[in-house]
C-alpha cells in the first residue's frame, strides 16, 4: 500500500500554491505535514484524498491514478477527517457512524457482511455508547470530533488523512484524539497523513514529517531531522530552542520571544 504524489501543481484562483510536489507515503507509518499558514497543506491533503484534482501531475494509490478510481472503491481504502469536523445535524450519533458504511453498500443500500457489529465496535472504541442515540447538534465540539473518528473507523480504511484534527480542541482532547489514531494506526498497520499546526504534537506522534514552504518541500524526514531551529526559523520566521522530551526523547521546541 503506497500513496504517491508525482510533480503535483495546484493553482487556486490564479495563484500558484503548490509547485511540482513529489512525495510518497508508505503503509504502517504516521506522517505529519507541517508549514506556515497558507502554504497549501490542506490543498495537498485534498489532492491526496482525490477530492480535488491537481492542476498538473497526479496521485496514484498502488500505481492506480486516483482520477481513474470510482468514488466508492477509493472510499473503501481511504478515509478523510475533515477540518472543522462534523456540522450540527439532526441525525443521531449512531446514524452518522453508520454513514461510514456507505462505500461498502451496493446500490440497494445492503452489504455482504452485517454492518451492525462494525458500527458497534467503532462506537465502543470511541466511547460513544452512552451518546449513541443523541443527536449531533446536542453534542459539544469535542464529542462531535469523536463521532467523526468513529465514522471513519466504520469506514474501515487502510489510509487515513487528517486535516488539522486538533484545531479548536483543548489539550486533553488533542492528546486523546491523537492517542486513539496512533493506537488504531498500529493495530491495523494504517498509513496516516495528518496536517498538524502544533510542531510539538507532530514530533510526539509522527514517524516522518514533511515541511512545506513557498509551494515546495523545504524539509522531509524524521522529527529529529526536520525539527531544528534553523529550519523552523526559515519556515516560520520564529526563533526557537530545541530540547529533548524528558520521557520519550523526541525533539520539542520552546518558543523564544522576539527582542524588544
Amino acid at each position, binding site marked *: 500500500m503506497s500513496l504517491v504524489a508525482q510533480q503535483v501543481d495546484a493553482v487556486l484562483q490564479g495563484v500558484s500554491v503548490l509547485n511540482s510536489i513529489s512525495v510518497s507515503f508508505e503503509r504502517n507509518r504516521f506522517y505529519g505535514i507541517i508549514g506556515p499558514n497558507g502554504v497549501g497543506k490542506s490543498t495537498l491533503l485534498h489532492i491526496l*484524498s482525490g*477530492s480535488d484534482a491537481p492542476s498538473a501531475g497526479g496521485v496514484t494509490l498502488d500505481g492506480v491514478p486516483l482520477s481513474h478510481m*470510482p*468514488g*466508492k*472503491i*477509493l*472510499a*473503501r481504502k481511504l*478515509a*478523510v477527517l*475533515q477540518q472543522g469536523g*462534523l*456540522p450540527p*445535524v*439532526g*441525525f443521531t450519533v449512531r*446514524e*452518522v457512524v453508520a*454513514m*461510514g458504511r*456507505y*462505500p461498502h*453498500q451496493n*446500490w440497494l*443500500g445492503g452489504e455482504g457482511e452485517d454492518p451492525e457489529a462494525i458500527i458497534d465496535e467503532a462506537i465502543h472504541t470511541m466511547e460513544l455508547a452512552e451518546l449513541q442515540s443523541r443527536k449531533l447538534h*446536542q453534542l459539544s465540539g469535542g464529542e462531535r470530533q469523536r463521532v467523526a473518528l468513529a465514522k471513519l473507523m466504520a*469506514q474501515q480504511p487502510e489510509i487515513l488523512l487528517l486535516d488539522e484534527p486538533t484545531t479548536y480542541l483543548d489539550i486533553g482532547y488533542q492528546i486523546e484524539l491523537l492517542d486513539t489514531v496512533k493506537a488504531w494506526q498500529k493495530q491495523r498497520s494504517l498509513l496516516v497523513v495528518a496536517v498538524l499546526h502544533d510542531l510539538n504534537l507532530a514530533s510526539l506522534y509522527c514517524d516522518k514529517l514533511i515541511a512545506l514552504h513557498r509551494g515546495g518541500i523545504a524539509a522531509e524526514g524524521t522529527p529529529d531531522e526536520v525539527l531544528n531551529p534553523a529550519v523552523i526559523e526559515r519556515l516560520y520566521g520564529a526563533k526557537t530552542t530545541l530540547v529533548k522530551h524528558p520521557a520519550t526523547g523526541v525533539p520539542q521546541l520552546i518558543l523564544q520571544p522576539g527582542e524588544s
Partner: protein
Amino acid sequence: MLLLAVSMIASLSIGSAGLSFADVWGILIHQLPGMPDAADKWTAGEIAIVTQVRLSRVWLDVLVGACLALAGAGFQGVLRNPLADPYTLGVASGSSVGAAFIILTGMQLALGLWTIPIVAFSTGILTLLAVIWLSRSNGVMQIETIILSGVIIQSFLGAFVSLMVSMSQGVVNQILFWIMGSLAMRSWEHVYMMIPFIVVALPILLYFSPSLNLFTLGERHASHLGVKVERTKLIVMIVSTLLTAAAVSVSGVIGFVGLVVPHLIRLLVGPDYRLIIPLAGIGGGIFMLWADTLARTVLSPKELPLGVVTALIGAPFFAFLLHRRMKVEGGAKH
C-alpha cells in the same frame, strides 16, 4: 397511506353539486364491472360530476401535490438550504412567462387544449438550462451560485410576466389567475400526463436518498465517502425540475406546498431522506387535496385560487409545528 385514502374518499364526497355521500359512493360502486347500470338511479349529469369532474380532480390534486412536495424535498436535499423550494431555480417564473405570453396573444388553442401546458413546461425547462449554464464553472456547481442564479433568473422573468400583465387589458385576470394556481376544469388527460413523471421520478429520488443523507454533512464529507457529488446534484435537480414543470404546467404556480410539506415531514420523522422522500410525496398529496377541497367549497360555487389557500392554511400550521418543536427541544436541554 391510510390518511391519503381517507382524505380522497372524504374529498370526493364534498362538493357544490349537492350530492350526498351515499349518492357519490353509489355512483362509484356502479362503475365497477359487473354492477348494474347506474343510469336508472342517477341522472347522467350526476354520474358525470362524480366520475369525470370530481374523481379526476381528486387524483390531480394528489399528483400535483406529490410532485411539488417531492421536488421541494429534492431541492432542499441537494441545496441544503431550508428556504429551497421547487421554484428556487426560477422554473415557475419560466413557466409563467410562457403561459402569460400565450394568454396575452390569445393563442390558447393554437395546439389544442394542451397549448398552455406544453408551452409552460418547455419554458420552465429552458429556465433550468439557463440557470445551470449560469452557475456552472469548470464542471462544478457551487450551491451559492445556483441559488443566486435562480434568484436572478426568477426576478428577470418575473419582470416579463408583470410587463405582460400590464400590457394586457381585458385578459389581466386570466394571467393572474393562471399564476395563482387552480385545478378547476381539468380532465383525466391531465391526470394521465402527470402519472409518468411521478412513476419515473420517485424511484430516482429514492435511489439518491442515501446520498442526500450524506449531503447533510456537507459536500466534501459526501465526496470522501464516495458520493459522486456533481452528478448527484445535477440529476436530483433535473428530476425535481421536471416534476415542478409538470405540476406547474397543469396547475399554475401553487406556492408553499413544496416548501412546507418536506419541512413538516422532517419535523415528524427526522432528517433521513429515505423516509422524507416517500412521505413528502404522500404528504404533498394529502395537503393539496384538502387545500383544493377548501378552495372549491368555502365560497361555493365560486372558487378560490388554490395558491392562496395553500399559503393561508400552510403558513399557520407550519408556524405551529415549528413553535411546538422549539418548545420540546428547548425543554429537553434543561
